[in-house]
């Protein structure tokens, strides 16, 4: 398994556990009053689960198992692959902090971090598509 795949999958596991933990915290609201930050994590939970866990796991496995690009560069561009990894993790990480903070404190600058998070994740998606496209080929 290539190093980039290991990083994708281990990061995916971290988001998986974190998403489940957020779900527990949100459910704990039936027992006690929750800090406003926890209550504002609703959209973040879905994206930790679907982007951080599911999509990132797919990215890692695709990078590992899909047909070779060429004999010299079997997995396409390593640099683009690593860029995708950092862009999606920094982008989603920023979202985890900035989205609830922006909800609780609108017009205080958190919105800019949210916008940066959007751009980073969008670039990660495009990077993955560009690096994978040529590896999806008929025999």
């Amino acid at each position, binding site marked *: 398994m290539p190093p980039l795949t290991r990083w994708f999958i281990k990061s995916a596991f971290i988001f998986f556990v974190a998403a489940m933990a957020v779900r527990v915290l949100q459910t704990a609201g039936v027992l006690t009053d929750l800090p406003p930050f926890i209550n504002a994590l609703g959209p973040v939970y879905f994206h930790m689960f*679907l982007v951080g866990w*599911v999509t990132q796991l*797919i990215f890692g496995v695709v990078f590992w198992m899909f*047909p070779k690009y060429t004999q010299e560069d079997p997995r396409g561009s390593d640099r683009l692959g690593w860029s995708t990894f950092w862009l999606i993790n920094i982008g989603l990480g920023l*979202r985890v902090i*900035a*989205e609830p903070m*922006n909800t609780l404190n609108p017009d205080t600058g*958190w*919105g*800019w*971090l*949210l*916008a940066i*998070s*959007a*751009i980073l*994740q*969008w670039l*990660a*998606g*495009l990077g*993955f*598509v560009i690096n*994978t*496209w040529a590896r*999806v*080929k*008929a*025999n």
Partner: protein
Amino acid sequence: MPLLSVFFIRTALIYLSLGFTFGGLMLFNKGITIMPAVWSLLPAHIEFLLIGWTIQLLLGVAFWILPRFSRGPARGREEIAWLSYFLVNAGIWTDVLSPLFHELPWLPLLGRLFEVGAAAVFAGYAWGRVKPIGS
């Protein structure tokens, strides 16, 4: 990789691009409001990423890697699997474009019917390939 898997997976990659673009626009707009109307992209964002990307990628990979038959065509009746490709994509676009046709309120239902048809057709096709290797 068989041709149908190439179609499934490359189409899935296109939906991933569209879904991330729509999601990025909405998230950007949540931080810095540029155009409130982008929120109307939410149903398409969900449809593209859940059905167009995730499900379609799984169908393409399943068609590629499930055990093949040792007798007859290796992947069985491929035309049935092709039907599921057309049905799932017809379903996605019927569903996503339905808000543009208010005079046709049954369009979302038709889209979902296409999608359940795709699921049933693919499951029926792949059923026999879920078997021990070599049998």
